[in-house]
């Protein structure tokens, strides 16, 4: 009897785990691959919460409002029909997590509590203490473990995905992966493959993300023909504590609770912060944005901090650092409101945030772009058909993507607490889609010639061989620093075409240099240098996609900002005023030109970019965003 079709899921963050669950539930076997035990995935870092309209705070919150907030938050750049399904599914997802035992924070009557989060008016964010991501990840992990106990899921942990195996027609029929203990490459057959490999923050050197967020896996399928969408849209978080290993997120709540951002007025002031009198401090957000002050949106805050340090040279000690000051609050108040966050700062900085201002700088935080995925539109509802093989399908047949590595839902900017939701939801949708796909396939992986697997394995073995027989002198870890510097230097919160041209040139050189490396470890046992060397090569390729997309997009949208092309709302003018109407006309003309997804196709000498229309049928962009 023929065996059942099998699905491979790569990645065991929220996205990958939910995909695994859905497939196992449908009765199909799953092989789950991850760099490390899935329970350690980056999703555990999320602190803040997950959005869903439960309307438990008497605010008449509505799913439609969640849809509107998500679309507008993304500056209209996301394909809209799937957003409808995302927001509609959210309350059910929270109920399901609750049934799975997530320790959501409670109201006095024992029901689910909800808090306010950035960019919206209603209390819509469910949370579990200060570790929401960890709690959600564990719930999904436990459910998958139950299936594992029944033999329905097989885990390959400490394995690195290297490539998909394509047959003669270019359809995905499996993967190659490297065992990270004995460093051997194997090929695996599968009738569908789902990638849930997370974000790409490490392309910017240090970020708020974990070591698994390199984007290497996404880059690998991109280089094999999958299209990559909206790469240039990277969210920068204004308040992160810089570290030698990573930047640690200091939650938005610090500003929400009255944190004041400042630098000394004079460059090079070496006094301790508490010795600098109030009138010698420059509270630049309060001065530049009197209406909002320190609580301006993330992107505005990031750019202001950037301006003060990089353009005005007022960063502390001339460096990329400014103060986030909470010391004017009594200790009890801070302990109660921000205890978790401040304790983390203390743990990792060794400084006391109750008496010393916190030192922060913007950091790469989230990637809105990713592997281009499709959906089947539902003609009746205007949303997405809930289960369909086209949903979350990449442009390679049989390959799906979910979680932060896909490009759906968030457009040009992501709302806080919307990505735990999208990672979960996209895992569900991709899992269901892969099942629909394998049910309908005519040709099985088992029918694919061995040669396809042997050749792909050989290609990967050759890469390993080349890397472990030194061909030059480049150190893979040093290359990562250079990559980070280049990206932070020119493709960061503020971009201009001259700098982007330099970045593109620099990346090209880096790519060439990354072909002649010399590893300090050429062994065949748990060789982390080899794994990193492979990843850095692929990160550089994806960096080129990000930089080129940014270079070509001559406008400001969401997280992507080029001062030269900024359309400013005329001050003090509103609808009906001729100045405002003129602005609105310009805004519309700009949308006609730029409200399009950036689609990158891999070519040997760098990405080729085209622009694709957005489906804005749910909420057509009639009015500019106006937060005044």
């Amino acid at each position, binding site marked *: 009897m023929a065996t059942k079709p099998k699905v491979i899921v790569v990645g065991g963050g929220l996205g990958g785990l939910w995909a695994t669950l859905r497939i196992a539930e449908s009765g199909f076997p799953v092989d789950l691959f991850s760099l490390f035990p899935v329970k350690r995935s980056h999703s555990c870092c999320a602190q803040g919460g997950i959005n869903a309209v439960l309307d438990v705070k008497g605010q008449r919150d509505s799913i439609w409002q969640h849809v509107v907030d998500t679309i507008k938050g993304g500056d209209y750049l996301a394909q809209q029909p799937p957003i409808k399904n995302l927001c509609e*599914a959210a*309350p059910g997802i929270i109920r*399901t997590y609750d049934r799975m035992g997530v*320790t959501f924070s*409670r109201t006095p009557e024992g029901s689910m509590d909800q808090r306010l989060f950035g960019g919206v008016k209603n209390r819509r964010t469910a949370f579990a203490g200060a570790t929401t991501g960890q709690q959600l990840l564990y719930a999904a992990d436990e459910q998958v473990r139950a299936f594992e106990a029944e033999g329905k899921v097989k885990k390959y942990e400490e394995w690195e995905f290297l490539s998909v195996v394509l047959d003669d027609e270019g359809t995905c029929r499996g993967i190659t992966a490297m065992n990270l203990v004995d460093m051997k490459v194997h090929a695996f057959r599968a009738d569908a493959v789902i990638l849930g490999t997370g974000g790409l923050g490490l392309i910017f050197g240090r970020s708020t993300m974990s070591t698994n967020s390199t984007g290497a896996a996404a880059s690998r399928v991109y280089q094999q023909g999958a299209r990559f969408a909206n790469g240039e849209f990277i969210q920068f978080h204004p308040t992160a504590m810089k570290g*030698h290993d990573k930047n640690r997120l200091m939650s938005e709540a610090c500003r929400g609770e009255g944190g004041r951002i400042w630098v000394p007025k004079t460059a090079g002031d070496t006094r301790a912060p508490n010795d600098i009198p109030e009138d010698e401090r420059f509270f630049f957000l309060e001065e530049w944005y009197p209406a909002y002050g320190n609580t301006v949106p993330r992107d505005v805050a990031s750019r202001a901090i950037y301006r003060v340090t990089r353009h005005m040279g007022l960063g502390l000690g001339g460096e990329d650092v400014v103060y986030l000051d909470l010391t004017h609050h009594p200790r009890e108040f801070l302990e109660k409101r921000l205890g978790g966050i401040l304790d983390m700062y203390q*743990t*990792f900085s060794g400084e006391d945030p109750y008496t010393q201002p916190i030192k922060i700088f913007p950091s790469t935080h989230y990637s809105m772009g990713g592997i281009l995925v499709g959906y089947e539109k539902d003609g009746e509802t205007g949303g997405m058909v809930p289960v369909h093989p086209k949903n979350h399908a990449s442009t390679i047949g049989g390959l799906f993507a979910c979680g932060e590595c896909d490009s759906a839902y968030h457009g040009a900017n992501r709302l806080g607490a919307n990505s735990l939701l999208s990672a979960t939801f996209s895992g569900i949708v991709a899992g269901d889609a892969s099942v629909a796909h394998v049910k309908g396939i005519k040709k099985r992986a088992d029918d694919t010639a061995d040669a396809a697997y042997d050749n792909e394995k050989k290609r990967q073995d050759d890469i390993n061989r080349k890397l472990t027989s030194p061909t030059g002198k480049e150190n893979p870890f040093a290359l990562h620093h250079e990559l980070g510097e280049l990206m932070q230097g020119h493709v960061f919160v503020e971009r201009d075409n001259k700098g982007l041209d330099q970045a593109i040139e620099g990346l090209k050189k880096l790519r060439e240099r990354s072909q002649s490396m010399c590893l300090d470890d050429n062994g065949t046992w748990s060789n982390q240098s080899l794994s990193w060397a492979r990843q850095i090569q692929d990160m550089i390729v994806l960096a080129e996609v990000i930089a080129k997309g940014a270079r070509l997009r001559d406008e400001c949208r969401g997280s992507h900002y080029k001062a030269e092309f900024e359309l400013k709302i005329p001050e003090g003018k509103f609808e009906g005023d001729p100045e405002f109407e003129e602005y609105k006309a310009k805004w519309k003309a700009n949308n006609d030109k730029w409200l399009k997804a950036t689609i990158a196709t891999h070519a040997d000498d760098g990405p080729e970019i085209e622009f694709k229309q957005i489906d804005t049928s749910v909420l057509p962009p009639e009015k500019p965003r106006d937060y005044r």
Partner: protein
Amino acid sequence: MEKEIHFKIKRQQGPDAQPYWEEFKMPYAPSHNVVSALMYLREHPTNTRGEKVDPVVWDCNCMEEVCGACAMIVNGEPRQACAALIDDLEQPIELEPLTKFPLVRDLMVDRQKMFDALQQVKAWIKVDGSWDIHRHAPLVSPKVQDIRYLFSRCMTCGCCMEACPQFHEGSSFVGPAPLGQVLLHNSHPAGEYDKEERLHAVMGDGGITDCGNAQNCVKVCPKDIPLTDAIARLGRQTTAQWLRDLFTN
């Protein structure tokens, strides 16, 4: 302040190789932790004898003390390397791998045993399916929720297992962390339905009767999880269960 950071690292090329100590020095910079220092060393892997050597192998992912990956023995104490600030540590800083788990290489060990234990104690809530049934779980009082939250932050790091004298190769004791998970799942209103099954999983050989109550586990847990409270409570529950079993059989 010292101008250098001095490490003494216990290394081992693989499970069958001989362990040896190797020393490294690197330039001092404020706010380094053990993980960020190891990152520096992997880029500059020259020991104090001036020899270029294989970079030290270790585990880490989140670097925020929530993923549990980077547990190792730092100056004699099992803890997360990312949260071990260099400024707080006596030098030379001694790094060793956890000893209660099979060694992979250098500071990296294989903690599969802990994940297997989670299977053994059925550390999950049985649900009809991952679909919405248009209902929440039964209400949970904020008090119970607070206790559950303490245990739900266990990141399977293994520090408690390392410190526990009863958990070792020769014993079949599941160790403190999985016992905490039994309590967590037994205290959920739906998880409670399978309480007996979980208690049975920890009642026999290797269950909680092996615990010597040395409290070592609690002292090292980076998340301050009250493991011995859980063990005491489970002890009472299993005794009750044992009596129930006696009558029903």
